[in-house]
């Protein structure tokens, strides 16, 4: 009985072999944490580069501004993490973000109370996600195609509302946008950043401490197995797209706070930034492996690259795209290398 599961006896302890064994023991059983650890390492490295090159880079407020300036992208990436963990993809989040921002700006202009406007916008996003989930699950449509349709659909609805930018003048929205949560050391966070962190924490709780969350991982690991283990695959698949739609809409509300307008051109291509952040955060594109924390790190990594470029001042902003592209490829190759060998 024993010997079946215990690893082979360690080799005789030559210094090199024992060091190798220690590394192996450290990695052994923690394989799934490697990508997320690498993401963290990349972020730390970027910070190190920034702090060596530029004075003022390591100011606490500069770091916190990363959260402030990327709050909506964090929320987007959190939603997309659910979808990718379950083995799907969501291309509609950028458009849903724009739609949610548009709905907010439009309804406020129409004189709706702000405390009603926000739930309506969130509900609209969740509803679009729910519909996409249903199309994907019940009609067996490829997630790529279904959410591509959702992307055009939501973007089209934006233009239907207005082709012009709608400014937001509502006093409550203004107050929310200005609200700062003071932190020690004279620093502060915007309300949006706090909401984003709360969303990430809530997502982590759901993914690790609820049956729905564990089922998301199970479906991402093997959909047919999850079905045969008696899990409700349909509920999971529809659920993750609904979560993603809701998060995209929440991102839209945060975006309106940040930008103070609704515009049909908001969030163009942002769905791809969100997916890139999730992948750079170490989540496997084929599903089943990854953490919300990684996605947050991924967003911060993208944000840090941009901050470095701002500090550099002379470089074209397209360099952030190039660096992000290289990082993305590196992470995909890393995942390939770490992927569990397919059992034949």
């Amino acid at each position, binding site marked *: 009985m024993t010997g079946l599961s215990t690893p082979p006896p360690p080799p005789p302890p030559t210094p090199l072999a024992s060091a190798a064994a220690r590394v192996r023991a450290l990695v052994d059983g923690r394989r799934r944490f490697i990508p997320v650890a690498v993401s963290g390492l990349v972020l730390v490295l970027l910070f190190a580069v920034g702090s060596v090159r530029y004075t003022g880079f390591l100011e606490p407020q500069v770091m916190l501004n990363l959260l402030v300036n990327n709050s909506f992208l964090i929320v987007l990436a959190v939603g997309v993490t659910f979808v990718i963990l379950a083995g799907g993809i969501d291309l509609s989040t950028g458009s849903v973000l724009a739609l949610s921002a548009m709905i907010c700006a439009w309804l406020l202009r129409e004189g709706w109370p702000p405390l009603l406007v926000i739930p309506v916008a969130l509900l609209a996003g969740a509803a679009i996600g729910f519909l996409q989930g249903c199309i994907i699950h019940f009609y067996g449509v490829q997630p790529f195609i279904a959410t591509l349709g959702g992307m055009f659909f939501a973007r089209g609805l934006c233009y239907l509302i207005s082709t012009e930018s709608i400014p937001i003048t509502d006093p409550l929205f203004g107050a929310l946008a200005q609200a700062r949560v003071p932190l020690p050391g004279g620093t502060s966070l915007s309300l949006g950043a706090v909401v984003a962190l709360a969303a990430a924490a809530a997502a982590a709780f759901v993914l690790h401490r609820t049956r729905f969350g564990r089922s998301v991982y199970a479906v991402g690991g093997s959909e047919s197995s999850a079905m045969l283990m008696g899990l409700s695959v349909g509920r999971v698949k529809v659920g993750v797209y609904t979560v993603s739609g809701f998060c995209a809409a929440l991102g839209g509300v945060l975006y309106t706070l940040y930008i103070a307008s609704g515009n049909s051109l908001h969030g163009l291509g942002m769905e791809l930034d969100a997916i890139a952040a999730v992948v750079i955060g170490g989540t496997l594109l084929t599903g089943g*492996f990854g953490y919300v924390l990684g996605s947050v790190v991924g967003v911060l990594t993208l944000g840090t690259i941009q901050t470095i470029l701002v500090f550099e001042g002379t470089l074209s902003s397209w360099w952030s795209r190039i660096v992000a592209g290289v990082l993305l490829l590196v992470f995909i190759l890393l995942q390939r290398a770490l992927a569990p060998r397919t059992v034949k």
Partner: protein
Amino acid sequence: MDTAAEPAVHMSGIVKDFPGVRALDGAGLRLEPGEVHALLGENGAGKSTLIKVLTGVHRPDAGSIEVDGRPVSVNGPQDAERHGIATVYQEVNLCPNLSVAENVLLGREPRGRFGISPRRMNRRAAELAAGMGLDLDVTRALGEYPIAVQQLVAILRAVDLDARVLVLDEPTSSLDRDEVRILFDLVERLRSRGVAILFVTHFLDQVYELCRRMTVLRNGRPVGTFTTDELDQRGLVGLMLGEQAGELDRVEGRAHDGAPPPDAPPLLHARGLGRKGGVAPYDLDVAPGQIVGLAGLLGSGRTEAVRLLFGADRPDSGSVEVDGRLLSLRTPRAPIGAGLAYCSEDRKAEGLVADLSVADNLLLAMQAARGWMRPMPRKARAELVERYISALRIRTASPDTPVGALSGGNQQKVLLGRWLIMRPRLLILDEPTRGIDIGAKAEVQRLVAAEAEEGTAVLFVSSELEEVLRLSHRVVVLRDRRVVSTLDNDGGLDVDGVLAEIAEGGAR
């Protein structure tokens, strides 16, 4: 727990239709608490379908299922688990990305104050594993363990469900001897607790080791339920195969006189050819003009064996020489270049193009060999097609009729003709007579024999023993994906002899 006489599961009259086929036709079984019951049959006999009906993956079109004497309808695997029916599938159906503990308890995770409690989950899973005598680190990802352990984890999951019925669908096919031992110990423990266990396998030795009773299916129909005392392995194999092709003997006697050609140097010389999970390494020699038959139950590795020769699957050991020249078996290119032709078992999926005409189908391989840059002259094409249609007696309205419109037997002859046009030196025929009528069978056999007379070497795979015996100079017997014996068909060999080899040959 009312009466001991109540069967744990009683399925009867189960009918299940799939588009175009009736997979189950009145099948059933009766499972008592505390027994290990074998479900047997060839591949395609309906074992898997019957299990999937029991576990709710398929809905039966007719028939009844009773669990503990109460009629139930099982609507999906979740529902089956509610009725106390748990299943361990051949391919482990767990999630390799999750921990062992999660795989055991998924869907029933113990909860603490803050949602699922990983600590309590790990403790519970570790207790279960220890209770079954398994030493596992339950916090590790399942994918880090070998398949054997994954199978055991799947059983642990069933144990935690308090399953009263455990279905094991070919659980041993990817395990080695020691791993099978451990699995059997676990099964025995569960049996002694009163769990009813349905054991599906094609390893007959294991059936006789583990089971008291067995139910045999053939072509979706029940053949009967027997105890291991009243039916030996030979009889069992006979029942699984059925009385096939007895009529053919009346159509025609032996296709040749049974004398193998004089000892010529082998055309094909294979040594230690094998592939993990496909067929164990085997040796094979085929001489020009010789017909070698491959016999064995469906799923015994016959097709896998010939696919290796042709490079259709990549062997991971061994070598093949043709005329003393080593062949590269990475793709079928080199074997085709050396004059090998492979006529696939699945003529619809891998052979004929149903929408193309008879002529096009006949010339497909020839044209492929010439290359698309050198089309054949129209006249040469017409002559060639004409000649083979008449030689093979293909009954078609015209050479331009789509192949899909022909009967099965004629389709098979077109496929055979495609390779004969190539004048192959070794013809590999995989089940060339399956699903065609008696007359067509006899004609295909005649063609094969005639081809061999002209010096073509033939490898002939068939489930019908009579056919193999009638045609072959030598018979290679496979069993459990291993070549167990090679018999000279010199007149002394009969069906019973081969049956005995299939059932017991090479055992232990």
